[in-house]
């Protein structure tokens, strides 16, 4: 069982990126489950989402308490102690930020508690580079295809095709490029 917990704000696509990892995991032949936890129903409030991957059906429906991975979609959240609740010695963290992990630790001392691996990804800049900041989700998906070991880049690309079925080809192609950029541009 591998458990991912995503933190972000409503409107950032927190739920979508979790769902995409579920699709990618499923494409890799892994039993996957993804689940949102909404605050009050409006944009800008904190949102969490969860993804579970297992060799057998994921039956538990509790929120993810002891995550193997934390994915933080906004640098602003790195100062919030709540994001680190339930972390284990083996918990790793991927933050969306233009700063390298070494700088993030200086800015947000609580990140010293993450000893197994701290990564950052400038997903918003790469998405902007492709012409649409909404695509930062698929940049993150690309990074997770490299980092988590659950699914590969090809599974992530198929997940995009599943999710965007019926959309025009240009959008799908741009999202595929976003996966690739995420895969290639992780800061350790």
């Amino acid at each position, binding site marked *: 069982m591998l458990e991912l917990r995503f933190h972000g704000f409503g409107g950032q696509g927190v739920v979508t990126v979790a*769902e995409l990892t*579920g*699709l990618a995991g*499923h494409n890799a*032949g*892994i*039993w*996957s*489950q*993804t*689940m*949102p*936890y*909404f605050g009050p*129903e409006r944009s800008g409030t904190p949102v969490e989402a969860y993804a579970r991957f297992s060799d057998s*059906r*994921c*039956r*538990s*429906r*509790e*929120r993810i*308490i002891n995550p193997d991975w934390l994915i933080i979609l906004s640098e602003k959240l790195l100062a919030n102690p709540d994001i680190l609740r339930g972390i284990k010695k083996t918990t790793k963290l991927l933050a969306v930020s233009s700063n390298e992990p070494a700088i993030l630790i200086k800015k947000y001392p609580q990140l010293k508690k993450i000893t197994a691996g701290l990564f950052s990804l400038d997903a918003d800049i790469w998405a902007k580079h492709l012409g649409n900041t909404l695509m930062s989700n698929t940049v993150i998906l690309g990074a997770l295809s490299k980092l988590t070991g659950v699914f590969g880049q090809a599974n992530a690309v198929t997940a995009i095709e*599943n999710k965007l079925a019926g959309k025009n080809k240009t959008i799908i192609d741009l999202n595929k490029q976003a996966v690739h950029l995420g895969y290639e541009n992780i800061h350790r």
Partner: protein
Amino acid sequence: MKTSIAKTIMLDGSRAVAEAVRLAEPSLVAAYPITPQTHIVETLSRWQAAGQTNYEYVRADSESAAAAMVLGAAAMGEVAYTATSSQGLLHMVETLYNAGGLELPFVMTLANRSVSAPINIWNDLSDAMAIRDTGLIMLFAESNQEALDQHIIAFRLAKELSQPVVVNLDGFLLTHTSEAVCVPSAKLVKDFLQVNRTKHNQHLDTAHPNTIGHLFMPEDFQSRRQNLQRKLVGALPIIEHIYQDYYKKIDTAGLTNYTTTNTGHLEYYGPQHANTVLITLGSIAGTIKDALDDFNKKTKKPVALLRLKTLRPLPISNLQTILKHKKYLAVLDRALSVGACPPLAADIAAALNGQSLVSLVGGLGGKDIERSDISTMIKLARAGKYGPHFI
């Protein structure tokens, strides 16, 4: 048989339900959107607008109107569907009593959510417990797969029994959770649903004008209600037969492990000799199963789970047979009957003829029940003090 992951697709519970409804081919879908049910009717509305389906879709002006529309369609002999949650369900209650009493068949999804006040959009079973006495058949799903299966089963049940059926699935925990689901082919579902509809002399028909829902005098009313009671209790073997037929004809069975301890009425999970049993409804059973697998590895006194799939009619003799020699029973309710015994505990206690049990309450308004809470539940079950204990 184990259904391979390759036969499944990732669907959230709302979409799984919408797929089942599409496959069942109702002639009317009438609903009013409410969280967490909205995605179901949005999907059905979108498909209809795109010309992919044959049903009429009516965005009713309230849940009360939606319930009246499906009741009216059923009175005309049409197959009708609606969906709601929480406060929306409460708007429907008057009509639901009528549908139950008039034996007018339709299928309803209840995406379970708490009931105000305080206002809260998250999951518990307070809404479902408000309609236990309406005469609707009530099914409860543990997973998105089972939600899909139970909806197709519900269309057959409604048709064969001429009685409305409500399928409960937990709001957010299922409606908004994506997982692998096997969607059966349209042909298999069509074959399964191909049964002669009970001839019902209550259909409204302009060629043969008649009245339904007329006044019953005191000398007739009780016997009519008594017949309804008999009908619902007598539906248990029919429900069982239809489940068996479903898993024989439709190949999602590998996912639900249909056996003698996993019937149309209930599922018993864990060692047969377990002397302690936790009893509950709905998707929390999944979390309990995982917790029990861990717990039972480390103990000589294992614990089992009994999950009811059918709450109305209540499978009393099944419950008695399975639970008769169990030493410690605990019933987990996710609803209250304020000021009295919680509803599921009251049902089970009455069914078991004085066998003692412990009442637990948890998960109200979306409060998370974690795997670690299950060991607390086991301790309370074995301590034997009635409660209710709030988890």
